[in-house]
């Protein structure tokens, strides 16, 4: 039997997912033994033209990481969808927007103005900005992809068969997901792979009591007890609203979870979910006092939706 054909691609991302793929370590060798990697621009001498020349549906599995920020990201998403039998959203950005989707809390114009005019080291008296088309030499044009107004997750552009959450996905979990897909015994479409059915709290060593809190602390403001639940000590931790899979890695060094594995099964809006968890531990019944306690959380949108803005019911800020 012919080996399965695999493609890997990165859109608006940091490259950490590619490193995560390397974190499967020597098992990369097993992967190579079991499958042919036919397109991986981060690593192989292949070009876009090679991909365009491939027949439709000729790639068995595409692992797509990164969010959709530019017209190039969108074009490649559509092209790879057409060439691939199975499309996998790999990592937080492809799955739910990730850190780049925090840009949905601002505007394209603000990003452009800042980057090319406002920052203290920018020297741009003519007010130049990158152009989608720019003429150079005689008659030649250099083109740049368009920068979209909003950041989208992959499933908001093309049909996605499976997703592998995490920023970045943990190596062992990546291997599980890849092995599942390569086994041919495919789970139901839409399944989340490389993660568990519980929450980060179920993987966390910090002991939970029934303690209730009257004040929130920012992580740098308090010396926490490293054996106890951070949320119960007043530090916002996304653990209760986050799918398990990472082994509570951040908590192992006493840092609170920021939710990169996305919402647990059955939950669509991760931010709304943590909000109800946080609400339930506040030790007050008085609406005004509750409001004051909640004011101790300085950036609810950017904290509760740190990785999931594209998938949230908010999606983006609206111009008024």
């Amino acid at each position: 039997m012919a080996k399965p054909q695999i493609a890997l691609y990165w859109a608006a991302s940091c490259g950490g997912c590619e490193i995560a793929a390397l974190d499967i370590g020597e098992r990369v060798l097993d992967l190579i033994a079991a499958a042919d990697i036919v397109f991986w621009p981060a690593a192989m001498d292949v070009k876009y033209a090679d991909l365009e020349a491939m027949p439709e549906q000729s790639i068995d599995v595409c692992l797509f990481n990164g969010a959709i920020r530019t017209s190039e990201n969108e074009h490649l998403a559509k092209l790879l969808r057409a060439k691939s039998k199975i499309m996998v959203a790999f990592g937080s950005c492809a799955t739910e927007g990730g850190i780049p989707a925090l840009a949905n809390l601002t505007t394209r114009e603000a990003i452009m103005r800042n980057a090319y005019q406002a920052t203290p080291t920018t020297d741009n008296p003519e007010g130049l900005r990158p152009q989608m088309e720019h003429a150079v030499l005689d008659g030649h044009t250099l083109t740049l992809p368009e920068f979209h107004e909003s950041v989208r997750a992959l499933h908001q552009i093309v049909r996605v068969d499976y997703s592998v959450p995490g920023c970045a996905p943990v190596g062992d979990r990546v291997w599980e997901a890849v092995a599942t897909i390569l086994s041919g015994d495919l789970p139901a479409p839409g399944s989340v792979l490389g993660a568990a059915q519980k929450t980060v709290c179920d993987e966390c060593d910090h002991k939970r009591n029934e303690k209730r809190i009257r004040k929130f602390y920012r992580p740098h403001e308090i010396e926490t007890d490293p054996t106890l639940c951070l949320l119960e000590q007043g530090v916002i931790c996304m653990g209760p609203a986050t799918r398990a899979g990472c082994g509570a890695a951040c908590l192992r060094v006493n840092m609170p979870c920021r939710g990169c594995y996305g919402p647990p099964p059955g939950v669509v809006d991760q931010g709304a979910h943590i909000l109800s968890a946080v609400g339930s531990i506040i030790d007050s019944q008085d609406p005004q006092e509750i409001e004051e306690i909640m004011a101790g959380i300085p950036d609810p949108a950017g904290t509760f939706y740190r990785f999931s803005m594209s998938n949230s019911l908010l999606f983006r800020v609206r111009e008024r």
Partner: protein
Amino acid sequence: MERIVIDPITRLEGHGKISIFLDDKGEVADAYFQVPELRGFETFCEGRPVEELPRIMTRICGVCPEAHHMASAKAVDAVFHVEPTPTGKQLRELMYSAFFASDHATHFYILAGADFLVGPDAPVAKRNIFGLIDKVGEEIGRRVIRHRMECAEAIALIAGRQVHPVCALPGGVSKPLSEQERDRLEQIARDAVKFGELSLQLFGDLVLTNPAYKDLILSPTYAQQTYYMGTVDEHNQVNFYDGDIRVVDPAGKQFARFRPSEYTDYLAERVEPWTYLKFPYLKGVGWKGFIPGPESGVYQATPLSRLNAADGMATPLAQAAYENMYDTLGGKPVHLTLATHWARLIEMLYAAERMLQLVQDPQITNKDVRVIPSETPDEGVGVVEAPRGTLYHHYQTDSKGIVRKVNLIVGTTNNHAAICMSIKRAAQGLISADKPPTPGVLNMIEMAFRAYDPCLACATHFLPGEMPLDLWVYDAQGKLLYRVTR
């Protein structure tokens, strides 16, 4: 006029496109390196609590998240006017040294190594880690994998995770080191020093004794005379974590030496309409276009630049290697772009030696790893040397520590103008009417680029391609994990 496009440039971190324009005679008229990507970190970090930035900025780059974590942590220290405890600072630098030792190895062995040790015009299927193992032997291939895994383990011990570390808080780090962890780190550091020495020896044996490769390094096609930037300690020795930024001119004379907080007095960034990435240059010289020499504000911040900008290395083995390189290449500064690979190996040895020094310091296991800030936050700059260049993070906040403004000058960006110039120069040297471009020549043009920006590399270079292979893979304890035969 004919247009050649290399799109995307493979084996590099990030997205990029090279366009080379030939004139009617088949000579290179111009070459452009475009970065078609922008994510807007400077803007979407506005409104975030500043202490969260070390955990957000890591996502600028998944290859060097440790660098952004550290520069961000130092900027946040400055915003809160807090100095980390001595142990907190040491733990940060220890983690950072492990990262440098790993990152430089990854780049040399997997990315550039294939170009160099296998040969720049070798068939595509050979220009990867397997081709490299064929050449240098399976033993060394196994050693590379082990080194990378051990450094990753060291990073995760301190920082929680290897991709996107989380340990830094204003005033220090989140967790002290146990005695048991320290012992393991010392073992890793000792191995890393040995690996650093081995790598330099290999470079000497395989590259420097091969006249064809040596000619390639010395070729004017890959030379570029510019200013050089790097961070130095109080003795003007290379330091990755802390110090002053020093700039030398193309003759090697000190042009500037400044504190991180003064960077806006020395640097400015030019905007071009054909790329999303800006072009930093030295304010004191000015932007004169994409040209080299003392009249042009173009500078480089690479491993070679750091060595050029410093007076030496702070550890003995690296210092000996430093002296050897400059003796061999005819003194300071060295302008040969491909010598960057040699400089990278010297830095790798330094990082390993520094790791060992830090882990052997008696106070490294002190429990006092953090100071809780007490002053009103306002503004701060944090600078570290990233593997790919000097990294600047600059934040302004309101009195509650909510971010108002962010400015970033990122490692590779420092070298953006020099990269464009190197590509054009290489294209001009390699393509002409009687030497039309072949795949090997295009790869040699990409080599001009790769010398600056290490890529992902490592196991990503385990590519398909059916070369004979019998690879044994062991874990850190020497246990055979896998044997792959083809």
